[in-house]
């Protein structure tokens, strides 16, 4: 069932357009991430849904009801702020109860809901502390708890993890994932961390420059980026985009030549490609390190990032083109070394002059 519906939302600040005709539909219980660079309008869109900002045009509907005219408190949405925005003078319990009291929920019911949320979030013994007495991770949970107890139709999370340190972030991410399976509600999470979005969301809404660039499951977005922006933005480290020229086609599939002369055969349909300059998109896992001369082309190693289970190699082709490759965890590659790169053309992408992405045809 459709839960949230955005219709042609438009918003400007002063003379500056911030959102341009944004429309979106979201299912009940769906977890959607708004992903995009800073300033792309993610928070603004979220705040329009929450009622903290007013759209200049467009409609917001929740469970079929138009809510954009309602005050924030009556929209049946709950929000977790980036800064948590816990009430510093209230205990955890009071923080959670505040919204319910305002909604005149009976006392018993309030207690029950708080107890339950505290159970889920494992903060039962923190209920009488004040936020200042808690660690960052605990505060985060209280902020989530404050949203949960309201049993809203829609959770809105604005960069809920960005204030946490790396260790806590990974843990909290898992917690968020588990949480959403326990509470039956739709969730929108704003983030500019693609790993976060990929991990948590059912669907990702990639935003850039006032518009939605692509909407899709994490895998769709990773595997079939709609355009070069999405391709670069999603995936870490970023996809290499190397200028390429069409050479030939084998079996209807495009074959391209990189600027250093190396040729790569793709599984992308030749005829779908527009005329004009192309860029070849290569994720690091499509480029592996081999002995010099043994691969598609050779390169010089610029930087080695050892991540334990695998190693990322930042290299330069003969003509200066940067390219990121991957190697095993116990790679012996060193900076300055010459290596061979084996490019898996079957996993490559092509982007035309209009920036639209073209992807390998499914293996038959």
């Amino acid at each position, binding site marked *: 069932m459709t839960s949230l519906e955005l219709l042609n939302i438009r918003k400007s600040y002063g003379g500056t357009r911030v959102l341009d005709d944004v429309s979106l539909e979201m299912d009940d219980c769906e977890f959607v991430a708004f992903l995009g660079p800073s300033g792309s309008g993610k928070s603004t869109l979220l705040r329009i849904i929450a*009622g*903290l900002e*007013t759209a200049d045009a467009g409609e917001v509907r929740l469970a079929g009801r138009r809510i954009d*005219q*309602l*005050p*924030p408190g009556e929209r049946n949405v709950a929000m977790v702020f980036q800064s948590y925005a816990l009430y510093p003078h209230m205990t955890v319990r009071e923080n959670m109860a505040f919204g319910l009291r305002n909604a005149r929920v009976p006392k018993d019911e309030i207690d029950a809901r708080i107890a339950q949320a505290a159970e889920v979030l494992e903060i039962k013994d923190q209920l009488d502390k004040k936020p200042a007495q808690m660690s960052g991770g605990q505060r985060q949970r209280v902020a989530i708890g404050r949203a949960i107890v309201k049993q809203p139709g829609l959770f809105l999370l604005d960069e809920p993890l960005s204030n946490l340190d790396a260790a806590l972030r990974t843990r909290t991410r898992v917690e968020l994932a588990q949480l959403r399976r326990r509470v039956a509600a739709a969730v929108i999470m704003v983030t500019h961390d693609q790993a976060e979005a990929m991990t948590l969301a059912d669907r990702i809404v990639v935003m850039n420059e006032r518009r939605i660039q692509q909407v899709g499951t994490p895998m769709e977005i990773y595997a079939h980026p709609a355009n070069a922006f999405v391709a670069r933005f999603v995936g870490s480290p970023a996809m290499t985009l190397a200028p390429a020229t069409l050479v030939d086609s084998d079996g209807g599939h495009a074959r391209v030549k990189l600027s250093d002369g190396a040729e790569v055969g793709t599984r992308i349909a030749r005829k779908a490609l527009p005329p004009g300059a192309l860029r070849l998109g290569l994720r690091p896992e499509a480029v592996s390190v081999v002995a010099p001369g043994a691969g598609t082309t050779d390169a010089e190693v610029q930087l080695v990032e050892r991540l334990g289970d695998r190693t990322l190699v930042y290299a330069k082709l003969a003509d200066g083109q940067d390219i990121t490759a991957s190697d095993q965890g116990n790679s012996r590659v060193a900076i300055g070394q010459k290596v061979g790169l084996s490019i898996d053309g079957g996993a490559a992408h092509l982007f035309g002059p209009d920036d639209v992405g073209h992807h390998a045809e499914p293996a038959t």
Partner: protein
Amino acid sequence: MNAGGRARYAGFAFVGPFLLLYLVILIYPLLLGIGLSFDHADLFGARRWAGIDNYARLLADPVFLRSIVNTIKLALLIVPPLTLIALLLALALNRATRAAAIFRGIFFSSSVLSVTIVTLIWRFILTPDAGLLAYGATALGLAPAPFLSDPSLVIPAVAITTIWWSLGFPTMLFLAGLQQINPDIYEAAALDRAGKWTTFRRITLPSLRRTLLLVVMLQTAAQLQLFGQVQLLTGGGPGGASRTMVLFIYEAAFGRWELGYASAAAELLFVLVLAVTLLQYWLVTRREPER
């Protein structure tokens, strides 16, 4: 920030009560006063149109002109040292020890006294034949300085009294300002080889810029209105050497019953205070980036 702009006028409900009182109790009398300043008027309601007579007389009245000079001198002699001492005190007391807390209390307690008592105390300190300073000076074999009867010493004497009395509040403001400064930048400065003085001048002082502005503005406005100390300590003497504008206004109103004249002087004082305050604000903020 509000939904739907319904609450465009809600703000008035919050600022309204204050603004109403403000208009009725401050602005309306101020306007009445401005009206009065164009009248010959006495305390009991007699009024006669005077045009700019009062102002013309004021600007030709050597006593008034001298009171302006005295007032400005006093402000100049009080505000900078007061600010400096308060700043130093705050620096010294900006620690969490018990002793510091006790000293904060002591420095605050002089502000607690009413002006009557403050002047009384200082009269006894400053009087050359009987004051504490006199005992000290005599003990050192010096002739005690006639602080209250020498025209050139009376203004410094009043200034000292005032500084002693007013120290509490600015010290508090500075203490607060100091606590705002991120302690990390002091460590960074230590690593940057900054000595004590450099740290103070290049780190502490600039960080206190806004506090400094606030203190200086508030104190200037307050000291330009200095009154009780001179009225009680020197009566404006000797020979008018310590008559301030407000004392002049007081004398004109309650001594001579010339309400119109007093009002005109009060308006000129208002203009002076306003001008100085705005000037300070402009000087300090003009080179600040937009925030």
